[in-house]
């Protein structure tokens, strides 16, 4: 990294950091690039005459645009409006996040508020207060999570296998989309099959153009829909090829087929489409969410979404995103809270975006989490992807929040992936859509992503997709094909998803199916958070599940590597150690468990090799060496100081079983030392030898250059501390009172 003239090396270094690839901008209210309170945002206002709304946020009825008009007709409850709008902003902000006003009272008042009022209130909340509001106001008590399941070649077997993996990990909604629109029916069909393999009840969707998406649902190939986009300005709404009325009829169309549906919005879209009318991001989003409620959608997906990088580019962008999520809950909607687009090249920044929401909880923490590698995500990389699953599980474990995922290893996943791929292959063959050979099936089962499988012939998936449409293949045909090919469990589960359409229970707010097909919704599982001890808390069993991560090692596992090296050196105690028998000696003080109960140091050297190198280093300087065991302390400073007080030269080396070593001198305080090698994992044989040499030189009264450890930026604690604790426990077991013991060292032949 070369610094240019006038630039510090630190600045040159900063330029290499991933955060330097993120570009942000100052506020430009005229372009809508402002998170809260644009000077162009209207003053909140409402005027009701004879139960009719005749003015809304400063606009008289005659000038209502389509959004104003739709909200006046369907959204705002005129009977509550005057009471609600008269509330002081700050007073209402306190009501929203406080524990003393129930959620239902907030919902009642919001029905009478205008978008400008809601935006202004939410702008008053700090990040922490927004988290409190989220915890209190979300509709469903139990948080859940959605996955993206896609791949860059629309490989149906891989979709099915990845759907199975996702459900096994805990995802309850799976969202696909396609790089090639004609592939959509095939991908939807594969997703449906794979989603029901590990457990029943996961909902599936395929995000495509509105009308096509509805058709897929009508055929039962999807069980819910999400990409029903609404916008905050009239022009962008129309550019999005809809109006509030057409969207409302679309919502009803889904309901008519017993299909779950939610709208989608998210700030930044109006800026990207060049018609934000100079309004703030949060105000426009308030109009979106208000339309969503007015049109009768049970829920919304918001919090940036495709516009996340617009919102992320302005000051307070992430606070605005969280405010959007809270806003959805204020309108009583299912909150499917974004985190579905990678918002930064920096791991720290993208995590910082998501963490507050995770801790607060929402109906769907992600919409969705990329369950597949980021290169396979046909939506573009999510904020968290398959690469991050272990990180996510560990953070979930750290905080004990409900992240709705669980660790599953290959033993659990591979049979499910195989079953899903086989079921999907059988259905595609039975329906005469596509065929796959055994070798390809094997590749799919073990694949990380689509780079591990064969690329199929161009157009093959598209032709299969066309055939599904032309031959009017439905979920019922999938059930039949599964049954004919002997996939009875999957046939029954796919059929049950079809049967559920007769009940429509999953059309209610925030509804999902549990793995036992029970309905969890705002009606069966309403959020009752009202402060400590209330609301959702992970059960004991769930916390145990959260605690089981891939990186967890029991003490027994951590210590398993010790046993094979038992007896690598033979240390025989022969009575109390002598005191200062000769002036030209260095005493080596061993910890209680060294070569006794601990046999391998953290660097992977045997204790025999570490001791041999120390002795050799001393011997090379022509100084005598004597080994003693200190039994009354495992503290390295105390071991060294005790040994130094026995040493004729006053100088001693001390070493613990884990390999940490120091040089001590009798006239120093116990916790001081001449040299310390504290990073045991980095101490190799040559450094122990140098420590021996330096100790000998100190014994002769010289001042040798200290032994340095190699430069390492790796944090040692997270990798080694569990093992350190296990080894210290062994040292502790070997503690006993009494004087230091003389030790005879012998080496097994």
């Amino acid at each position, binding site marked *: 990294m070369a610094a240019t003239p006038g630039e510090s090396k630190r600045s040159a270094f900063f330029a290499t950091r991933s955060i330097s690839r993120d570009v942000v901008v100052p506020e430009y209210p005229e372009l809508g690039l402002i998170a809260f309170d644009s000077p162009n945002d209207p003053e909140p206002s409402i005027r009701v005459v004879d139960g009719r709304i005749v003015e809304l946020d400063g606009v008289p009825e005659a000038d209502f645009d389509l959004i104003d008009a739709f909200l006046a007709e369907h959204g705002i409850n005129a009977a509550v409006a005057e009471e609600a709008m008269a509330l002081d902003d700050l007073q209402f902000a306190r009501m929203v996040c406080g524990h003393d006003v129930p959620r239902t009272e907030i919902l009642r008042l919001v029905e009478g508020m205008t978008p400008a009022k809601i935006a202004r209130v939410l702008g008053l909340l700090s990040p922490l207060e927004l988290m409190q509001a989220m915890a209190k106001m979300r509709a469903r008590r139990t948080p859940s999570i959605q996955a993206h399941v896609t791949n860059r070649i629309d490989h149906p077997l891989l979709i099915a296998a990845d759907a199975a993996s996702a459900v096994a990990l805990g995802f309850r909604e799976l969202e696909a989309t396609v790089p090639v629109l004609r592939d959509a029916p095939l991908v939807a069909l594969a997703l449906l099959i794979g989603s029901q393999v590990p457990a029943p009840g996961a909902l599936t969707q395929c995000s495509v153009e509105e009308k096509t998406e*509805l058709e897929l649902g009508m055929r039962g190939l999807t069980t819910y829909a999400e990409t029903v986009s609404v916008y905050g300005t009239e022009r962008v709404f129309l550019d999005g090829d*809809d*109006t509030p009325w*057409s969207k409302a009829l679309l*919502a*009803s169309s889904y309901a008519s087929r017993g299909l779950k549906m939610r709208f989608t919005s998210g700030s930044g879209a109006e800026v990207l489409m060049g018609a934000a009318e100079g309004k703030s991001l949060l105000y426009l989003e308030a109009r979106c969410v208000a339309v969503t409620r007015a049109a009768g959608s049970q829920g919304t997906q918001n919090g940036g979404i495709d516009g996340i990088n617009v919102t992320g580019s302005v000051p307070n962008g992430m606070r605005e995103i969280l405010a959007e999520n809270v806003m959805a809950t204020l309108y009583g909607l299912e909150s499917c809270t974004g985190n579905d687009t990678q918002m930064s090249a920096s791991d720290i920044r993208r995590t910082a975006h998501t963490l507050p929401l995770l801790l607060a909880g929402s109906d769907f923490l992600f919409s969705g989490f990329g369950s597949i590698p980021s290169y396979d995500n046909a939506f573009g990389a999510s904020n968290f992807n398959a690469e991050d699953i272990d990180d996510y599980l560990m953070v979930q474990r750290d905080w004990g929040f409900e992240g709705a995922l669980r660790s599953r290893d290959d033993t659990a996943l591979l049979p499910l992936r195989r079953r899903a791929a086989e079921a999907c292959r059988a259905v595609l063959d039975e329906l005469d859509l596509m065929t796959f050979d055994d070798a390809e099936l094997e590749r799919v089962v073990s694949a990380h992503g689509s780079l591990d499988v064969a690329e199929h012939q161009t157009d093959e998936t598209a032709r299969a997709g066309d055939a599904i449409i032309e031959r009017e293949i439905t979920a*019922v045909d999938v059930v039949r094909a599964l049954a004919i090919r002997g996939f009875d469990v999957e046939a029954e589960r796919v059929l049950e998803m079809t049967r559920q359409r007769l009940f*429509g229970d999953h059309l209610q707010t925030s509804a999902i199916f549990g793995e036992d097909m029970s309905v969890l919704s705002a009606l069966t599982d309403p959020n009752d958070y009202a402060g400590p001890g209330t609301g959702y808390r992970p059960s004991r069993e769930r916390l145990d599940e959260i605690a089981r991560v891939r990186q967890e090692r029991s003490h027994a596992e951590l210590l398993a590597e010790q046993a094979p090296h038992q007896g690598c050196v033979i240390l025989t105690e022969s009575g109390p150690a002598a005191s200062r028998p000769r002036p030209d000696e260095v005493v080596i003080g061993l910890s209680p468990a060294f070569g006794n109960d601990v046999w391998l140091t953290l660097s992977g050297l045997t204790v025999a090799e570490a001791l041999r190198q120390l002795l050799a280093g001393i011997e090379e300087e022509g100084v005598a060496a004597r080994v003693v065991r200190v039994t009354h302390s495992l503290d390295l400073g105390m071991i060294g100081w005790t040994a130094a007080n026995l040493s004729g030269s006053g100088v001693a080396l001390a070493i613990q079983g884990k390999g940490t070593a120091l040089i001590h001198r009798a006239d120093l305080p116990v916790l001081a030392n001449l040299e310390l090698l504290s990073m045991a994992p980095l101490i190799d044989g040559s450094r122990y030898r140098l420590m021996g040499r330096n100790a000998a030189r100190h014994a002769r009264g010289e001042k040798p250059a200290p032994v340095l450890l190699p430069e390492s930026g790796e944090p040692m604690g997270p990798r080694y501390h569990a093992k350190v604790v296990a080894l210290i426990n062994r040292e502790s077991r070997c503690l006993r009172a009494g004087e230091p013991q003389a030790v005879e060292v012998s080496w097994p032949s």
Partner: protein
Amino acid sequence: MAELRYPLGEHNRGDVRSQTGRTADELTVADIRSGVVTSADAAVDPDTLRRQAEFAEQGGNPQLADNLRRGAELALFSDDDVLRFYDALRPGRSSIAELETIAAELEAGGGERCAALVREAIAHYSRRGLIS
């Protein structure tokens, strides 16, 4: 008829029937294999959606209830009709007269609420100069 309680699938599994009169458990894999049961047997009955509308209303969301009631009306129209109605309401697709025809068609098929929604759209589209 038993009292219908939410969730219907839990409390009223044997009471709720599809448009063709089948209960959920009468949709069996065996009958699908033999062709006795088809996709048409999996269509939700409008009355079920109206009951869900009542649940939504009791849950404090009258707009969701309205949507479910409009859905109940559309449940009796064919897939093609429903897709056509939606498409017609999108920007620039229809004239006032065409939307009036659709409203009438909805009304004739028992879709008063949907017809009202379309007529409301006509009024606002006209006022905003989107259609003529």
